[in-house]
Every structure is written in C-alpha cells, then in structure tokens.
C-alpha cells in the first residue's frame, strides 16, 4: 500500500528576470513502513521536494497523494491541518521552542490538534521516555545537548502518530557519536513499522535506509 504517491510533479520558481526549475517531472511511490533516504548535492532540489512532501509548499504541476489524501489546491489552514495530523517533522536545526521545557515542546503539536491536557501530559512523557529522555522532562531546550535536542524533536514528531516521519538532514548539526544514537532510534522506529523519509547528503547516514532516491538537477537519477 502506497502511503506517498508523487506523479509528475514540477516546481518552478518565477522571478521577473528568470524561471528556475527546482523540480522537473518527478514521480515515485513510497510504501507504508518503508525507510527511504533522498540524496543529492546542494541545489539538486531535495529541499524543495521535502517542502512539498511536508505540505509546506504546493507543486506547480503534478499530483501528490499523502495517505489517501490529495494535497492539491489546499488553503493554508488545510495544509496546516495535514501537517499536524499526517507529518512528523525532524529538522536539521531541531527547531525547538527556545527557553521552553522539553515537555512543553513535545506537547505543542497536540495543543494544535486539540488533545485534552491530561492526555497531552501522559503522551509527551511516554514519548520522551521512549527516546531516552525520561530524566530531562523539565529541562529547557538550551540546557540539553544537540543530540538530546534532536531526540526531543523526534518525540515531538511521533507524538500524534503521523503517517510519515520527514527528517531533513537530521544529523547535520550534531556530533557523530550522537548521530549514531539518532540513527539507532530511526532504525528502531522503522522496525516498529513507521514510515521514514530522510533527506541527507551524507552517504553513511543514507546507508541506514532501505531505499535511496537520488536527485540531481531536479530529476530522479
């Protein structure tokens, strides 16, 4: 069963002087439970692809179906809803709320989803324990290391049980020992049946994935 179906999508950025083709007729499918890495040098269009897959942006042409829902001609608020329910984001620079406790960070997506407070607390605690931060619940994001911050981000991404986990260079900003820990978590999540899409330019990180999609000049190569 395909959880992601991308057919013939292109993204063209237009300015007055010129047209830039960031994605050119890209098609692929990702099945439920797959662990896929998207690789490519900078300027290959992988960020653009990740924005589209993350429902942060819409393609210029082509169709994108995420977990049975057609992501097309949606309003900002409808896109926000899709991101909230179906996508768990893990960013290169973690993007935790500054000076805010790990608990509150993990509870944030549940707040926007309207989960009752009692459940929010329980689930945040459960997922933080799962990523090994059960003893860091009341630490603020600037009191913990980069690797720990990324683990908080993973807990935050998982907490609403999304259709896909979308990781953009998840180890790009952390030391290699901690990077291995993060990848170990990813491998574990994959075994548990989560669908993971990871964007990276590091071959040894991409090697953890079961399938690699190579992108070059806006095309799958």
């Amino acid at each position: 069963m395909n959880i992601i179906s991308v057919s013939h999508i292109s993204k063209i950025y237009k300015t007055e002087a010129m047209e830039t083709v960031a994605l050119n007729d890209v098609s692929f499918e990702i099945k439920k439970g797959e662990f896929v890495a998207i690789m490519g040098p900078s300027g290959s269009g992988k960020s653009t692809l990740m924005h589209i897959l993350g429902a942060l942006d819409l393609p210029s042409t082509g169709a994108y179906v995420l977990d049975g829902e057609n992501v097309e001609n949606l309003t900002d608020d409808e896109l926000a809803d899709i991101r909230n329910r179906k996508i768990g984001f893990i960013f290169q620079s973690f993007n935790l709320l500054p000076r805010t406790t790990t608990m509150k960070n993990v509870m944030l997506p549940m707040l926007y989803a309207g989960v009752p407070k009692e459940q929010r607390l329980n689930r945040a605690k459960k997922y933080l324990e799962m990523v090994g931060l059960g003893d860091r619940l009341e630490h603020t994001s600037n009191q913990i290391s980069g690797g720990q911050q990324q683990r908080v981000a993973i807990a935050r991404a998982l907490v609403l049980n999304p259709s896909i986990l979308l990781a953009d260079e998840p180890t790009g900003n952390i030391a290699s020992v901690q990077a291995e820990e993060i990848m170990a978590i990813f491998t574990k999540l994959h075994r548990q049946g989560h669908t993971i899409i990871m964007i990276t330019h590091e071959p040894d990180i991409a090697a953890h994935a079961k399938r690699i999609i190579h992108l070059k000049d806006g095309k799958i190569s």
Partner: protein
Amino acid sequence: MEYAEILSEAVGTLRVNKIRTGLAVLGIVIGIGSVIALISLGQATQQAVQTQIQSLGANLLTVNPGAQRTGAVRGAGGGNTTLTNEDAAAIASSPQITTIKNVSPEFSRRTQVATGKSNTNTQVIGVTSLYADVHKTVVATGNFINDRDVESMSKVAVIGPQVATDLFGEGSTPVGQTIRITGQTFTIIGITQSKGGTGFLNQDDIIFVPLSTAQKQLFGVNYVSSIGLEAKSSDVMPQAQNEVGYLLLTRHKFNDPAQADFSIFSQQDILDTASSTTGMFTSLLSGIAAISLLVGGIGIMNIMLVTVTERTREIGLRKALGAKKKVIIIQFLTESILLTFTGGVLGIIVGVIASFIIARAVNAPFLVSPTAILLAFIVSAAIGIVFGWYPAHKAASLQPIEALRYE
C-alpha cells in the same frame, strides 16, 4: 485549541522575555498613569474651586446698587447709594416674595483698624444676625453679631482669623480684647472659622460689626452696599432673582429693567464660569495625557513588530507543526493585550499614587476619578487590540518555509 491554553502559552512567552516585556509594559504604565493622575488633578482642582465658591454661601443671590447702563457705559458697581435698609426689609416682608429664606443687608468699607501696638487695613462690614446664615459663616470662638447688638448699636466686633493673626499674632484668641476702628473702641466678641480663599475672595481678612453701628457710628451713611439673599433652594434661584428684581424695580419706580439702578448676581453664575474654566483645564490635561497614551500604544506596536521578526522561526515552526492562521493571530493578540492590560493595571496604581502625591504637594483634595480608571482600563485593552492587530496579522501571514529558513 482552547482559549485558556492560548492564554497560558502567551503568559509563558512573555515571561521568557522579561526585559522586553517589562519595557513594553512601562510605556503603557506611563501613559495610563499620567492619564489618571492628570484627570484626577484636574477634577480635584475643579472641586476645590467649587467648594471655595460654595463656601461663600449656598443658594446666594447678591443685590448690588448701581450698574445701570447709560448708553453703552456701565456705571461703576458699588459706588451708588440707592439700596437702603428699607429695601432689605421690603424683600423680607413682601408677600409677593415666596422664594427667599434669609435677607442680609450689608455695608462694607475698607478702613484702618488698630490695637495698642499694631494696625492693619481691612474690610469692615456692618451686618445683621442673618449674615451668618446667608453666607454660611461659622464662629469658632465666642458669638456672632445678634439682633440686640444691632438694635442697641453696640460697639462689638467679630473678626476673621486672618485679622486675629495680623493684630494679635499667630494662634491667638483675642475674645474680650478691644480694637480701634476709625478711632472708636470695639470689644471683640467672636472669631470666625477660616474659610480660606485669597485676594478679593479672602473671607478671613474681615471684621464684622452690627449694621446700625457701621452705618451711623463709623461711616455716617444711611444706605447699604449690598443685600445678600438666601434662596430656599437652588431650583428656585431664577424665580427668586425675578421676584426680587420686580419688587425693587417697583420700589425704585422704574418700568424698564434696563434702567434699573441695581443688579442681582447669582452664586450660580460665578460657579458656572469657574466650572467651565476648570473644565477646560481638565480637558487640556486629559489631551496631554492621551498623547502619552498614544505614544505608549505605538511603543507596544513597535515591540510586537520586533517580536514578530525576532520570532519568525518560531512562528514558522508553529505553523509547520499545524498551527492555523487564527491560532497565531489569537496568540499574538493575546500577548499584546496581556502587555497593555498589565500596563493598564500597574498604570492605575501608579496614577493613583501620583495623584495622591500631587494632591499633597499642591494642597488640593485627593480625589480619584472612577471614570478615569474605567476609561484607562478600556483604553489599555483597546490599545492592545488596535496596535497588536497588525503585528499579529503579519505573523500569521508568514509562509512556514520562509519562516523556517529565516536566520
């Protein structure tokens, strides 16, 4: 997402940035505080002036001689000799006059007054016992002039506290001692309570003697310089003015009111003039305060705009995690309203303290206007909405990709 949660989120972000929050609040505190302090000061002044004028006598009408118009020239007020004791008696006894409670014929003149060692130039005023009722004069020590003093032309005097100080020294109570007025010896039988006032309104620099004594023994006249009238209530003031005017016109044999050789002033006229003056003063002060409030509001908008720029990444993140436009708008609006609301409450406290200090410093009554507080409250909340709207809208319209990329 429930509003209580948005509120606690907003409180959280405001607490995280204490200095920025404090500075934004300070602008509103100063704005609201000055509005309350200045309005209260204005109203205290207004009340002080009104109390002062009312202390001259409630529901008071004053008949003065002269002031008739000859062409465009107005005769010098008070110089005429057309009002008599009989006029006063007629007002008191006429069956046509139904609205006057007390009639007080008065004769006053400035003259030299002396004791053995010191002397002063002051107002000597011949009165009957009713003067005290009409002008609300209260005797602090001793007695006021009574009817027997007037009948028997006694050489007795009631003096104001200022005169007592001038002639006998600070804090003295010279009842029973004597003073010389135009060379004649008077015994002091009472000292009035201080009414305050300055200049021509000074009710403390005055000496009361029996009317008959003043007219016949001191100054050798057979007219009065004014007649004070106390109306039965403030509602009948215009009617009282008409009744007395008509009676006096008849007695003085004039048909045309424009020819009258007397004029009647109402206490209300003076009060109205004074009120409108002090009211203007209050409006002026409020205007100045409103400007500082506006500046405070723009300060809030500025801080909120800076906040939006500074928190671009955070806003992007929130949107990436599923925050809808409305939620972001409400969050930012809540933050700015919280800022102005806190500023408003603190501003009210500061304003009340400031008006207390000012009242003490300028010796005005301490008075806090509930209207000013209510107004300040509403205005501060409104500033939060008005000046918070644009930054909130700007934040909510940020594209999540742009926002996340922002460094």
